[in-house]
């Protein structure tokens, strides 16, 4: 009796416990996959923007939808990337560099079939300038809404407040939107921000499948028939299903399994080997202008001491970090500018890992009265492990020379808030100098001008009239050679003053399935041109 009962109980429990795996034939999965018609589609696993509005956000993921849903007056092309006309067929600039006349390409159609005209360009620039966030802040210092006018059905004039050298480099940031469609969807004077956040009003090669967008989660796009630039390949990708995978480990599994055709472009160096070994996968290397640097609070004791800052600069184990943590996937960047960009002095040596030198400078700082015994704080960013790894390496090296450093962690929103006031700004923190527009001003100009104080860009609290003057002059002159000279000089000066600890320019790595052909990384962010891709097999 007891034995029989026992068997019965255990069988019941066992059956229930095993409920999950039992009776789950594998074909059920494929069965449905076939129904989903996903095979002919590109299943894009790269990061997805929070919004489809190309004006209100400007970050790495947003470039993907901006480039493929919209066209701009200029685009980046070539290597190294330079701004080249796209919707603009002809550009005439006045001698003082303040007035620019653009001729707009005729015959370009928006996705709703209407023609793209000068009115749309004017509307787009005015909208961009009116919105408080995203692209606007980069233009507003030198441009006013009244300065953009249509001078004909296909001609636009833009007048700047003062000559601004990076202007053309900034133009690929501004997507041209369908004015009629936008105005039809405007509610409460919101520039249709609510509507366009989940829809498109563009003329680009792809259009949004209505209702398919969920921020950070999913987006379906379809190829636009008769796109004005044409399709390079005979069988371009008709359907793009964006399904970003946010978990690090699962992302690799998903691309290995074929659930997605591509990951985002931050495959960590530790994972490279696995991707290279996996059948049907390849590791794509994407050169990046993005820099990585430690921001040092120059306004606070002991970091306000030049020798102390130099000690920090000598203490960081650059090669170890690049070779071991990043497994050689980045190049050392000794100064504030990406090494491949003009304006970076080719002969700049920068600092090397040298603890003896660090000790010497530390002693000098101590003699000068700097409070070198104070515990300094490195604020690492939650969710960005590299910042934590850099912090731990620096901490470990500083300990060897007798400087104590603690590591705090903050989420990005928190860190940004801290940098707004000099008192709360972190002693040291780190971030990436991402590419918004390809011009030295994007890095050195944005980070070390006095105008940047009070934002996270100015979190070094660096105040130097001479540098500020050079940067302002470089912005105002249109003479490329003169600008180069000024940026090189500013770079050298910043390095001499050891303002920050500049570490590397990265490579980005993306795992892409073999069946995806024609893949070429975009110049800015995730802005690759999907038109060039096709699927094999």
């Amino acid at each position: 009796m007891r034995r029989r009962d026992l068997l019965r109980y255990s069988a019941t429990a066992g059956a229930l416990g095993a409920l999950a795996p039992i009776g789950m034939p594998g074909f059920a999965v494929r069965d449905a996959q076939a129904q989903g018609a996903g095979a002919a589609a590109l299943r894009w696993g790269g990061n997805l923007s929070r919004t489809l509005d190309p004006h209100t956000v400007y970050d790495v993921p947003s470039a993907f939808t901006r480039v493929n849903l919209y066209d701009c007056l200029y685009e980046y092309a070539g290597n190294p990337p330079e701004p080249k006309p796209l919707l603009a067929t002809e550009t005439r600039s006045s001698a003082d560099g303040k007035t620019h006349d653009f001729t707009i390409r005729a015959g370009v159609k928006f996705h709703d079939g209407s023609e793209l005209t000068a009115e749309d360009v004017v509307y787009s620039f005015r909208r961009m300038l009116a919105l408080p966030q995203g692209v606007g802040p980069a233009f507003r210092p030198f441009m006013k809404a009244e300065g953009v006018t249509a001078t004909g059905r296909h001609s636009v004039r833009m007048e700047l407040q003062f000559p601004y050298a990076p202007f053309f480099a900034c133009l690929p940031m501004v997507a041209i939107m369908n004015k009629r469609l936008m105005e039809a969807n405007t509610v409460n004077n919101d520039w249709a921000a609510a509507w366009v956040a989940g829809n498109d009003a563009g003329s680009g090669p792809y259009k949004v499948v209505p209702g398919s967008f969920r921020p950070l989660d999913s987006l379906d796009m379809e190829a636009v028939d008769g796109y004005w630039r044409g399709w390079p390949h005979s069988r371009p990708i008709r359907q793009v299903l964006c399904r970003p995978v946010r978990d690090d480990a699962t992302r690799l599994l998903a691309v290995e399994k074929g659930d997605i055709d591509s990951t985002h472009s931050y495959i960590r160096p530790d994972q490279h080997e696995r991707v290279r070994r996996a059948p049907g996968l390849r590791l794509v290397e994407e050169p990046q202008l993005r820099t990585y640097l430690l921001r040092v609070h120059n306004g606070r004791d002991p970091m306000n001491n030049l020798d102390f800052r130099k000690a920090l600069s000598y203490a960081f184990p650059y090669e170890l970090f690049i070779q071991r943590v990043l497994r050689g996937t980045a190049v050392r960047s000794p100064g504030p500018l990406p090494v491949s960009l003009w304006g970076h002095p080719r002969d700049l040596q920068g600092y090397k890992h040298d603890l003896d030198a660090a000790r010497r400078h530390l002693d000098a700082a101590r003699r000068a009265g700097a409070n070198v015994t104070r515990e300094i704080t490195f604020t690492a960013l939650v969710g960005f492990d590299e910042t934590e790894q850099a912090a731990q390496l620096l901490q470990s090296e500083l300990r060897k020379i007798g400087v104590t450093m603690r590591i705090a962690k903050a989420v990005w929103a928190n860190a940004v808030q801290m940098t707004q006031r000099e008192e709360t700004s972190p002693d040291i923190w780190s971030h990436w100098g991402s590419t918004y527009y390809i011009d030295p001003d994007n890095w050195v100009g944005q980070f070390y001008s006095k105008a940047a104080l009070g934002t996270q860009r100015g979190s070094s609290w660096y105040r130097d009239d001479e540098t500020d003057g050079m940067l302002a002059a470089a912005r105002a002159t249109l003479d490329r050679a003169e600008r180069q000279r000024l940026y090189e000089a500013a770079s050298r000066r910043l390095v001499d003053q050891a303002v920050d600890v500049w570490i590397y320019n990265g490579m980005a790595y993306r795992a892409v399935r073999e069946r995806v052909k024609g893949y070429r990384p975009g110049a800015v962010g995730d802005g690759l041109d999907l038109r060039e891709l096709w699927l094999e097999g």
Partner: protein
Amino acid sequence: MSAAPAPTGNGAEAAAIAEDSPAPRRGGLARLVGLFNANWTSWAGLAMLVVIVLMAIFAPLLAPYDPLDQSILNRLKPPSADFLMGTDAFGRDVLSRVLYGARISLIVAIAAIGLAMVAGGTIGLVSGYVGGRFDVAMMQAMDVLMSFPSLILGLVIVALLGPELRNLIVAISLTAVPPFARIARAPTLAVKERAFVEAGRALGFSHARIIFVHILPNVMSEVVVMGTLWLATAVRVEASLSFIGLGVKPPTPTWGGMMRDAFENILDAPWIAIYPGLAILALVFALNLLGDGLRDATDPKLRGE
């Protein structure tokens, strides 16, 4: 909290009294040990816990390396004679970190649950004792906290106030306050109806004395048993918060944090995760066995057997 006023001078005279008493004295502790004895698993749990605590205390003697020492040359080494449990992504010795990690993990768990026990227990006792609208209001407040699921509350607090050890402890303990308040309140409601509470009031005892000297010992066993179970939860919550990136700040080793770090490399260096995982398992196991034993030993309904 006032301490129980043990009669001073109890020692010698009490012993003398015990001598001429025919029946052997059966104090609470002795009874507990007796019942505890009946179940060997409770002793196993206690033994495991003692080992873990000793590991934590003697970590500096036992650990072969400095748990913070990075050796980028020895990154992600599998277990070997040099590194018994291998190394992590910073080239730190996993064994040493597991040993040192016992400290923080225990501190976080014990401090958080201890706080929750004291705060929740006091709320439950006072609320149950006072009764009326105060009780209703307190229990509503507890419902508020309770309907804020533990990990989410922890997440909000730690994300917003920063992932400091202190905030982590506060966050975890806050999530555990309502259950402790409830578990302390229920028996309080029953105990306060008993005549000895009225007797205490008639004898002019203060409310504080009645609550903490007379009622508290009668609800203690429930609270303590739940405490041992929740210690395990605290360790898990710490691991989960670490997973989201909101754990104890680096490079301080904690088991939860190590699991999370290891997760990064789970596909290419799975050994890093195994050992802290086993350590968590052992701790949770020990605490649960102990909790089970304590519950069985203090549950009057189970004493009969």
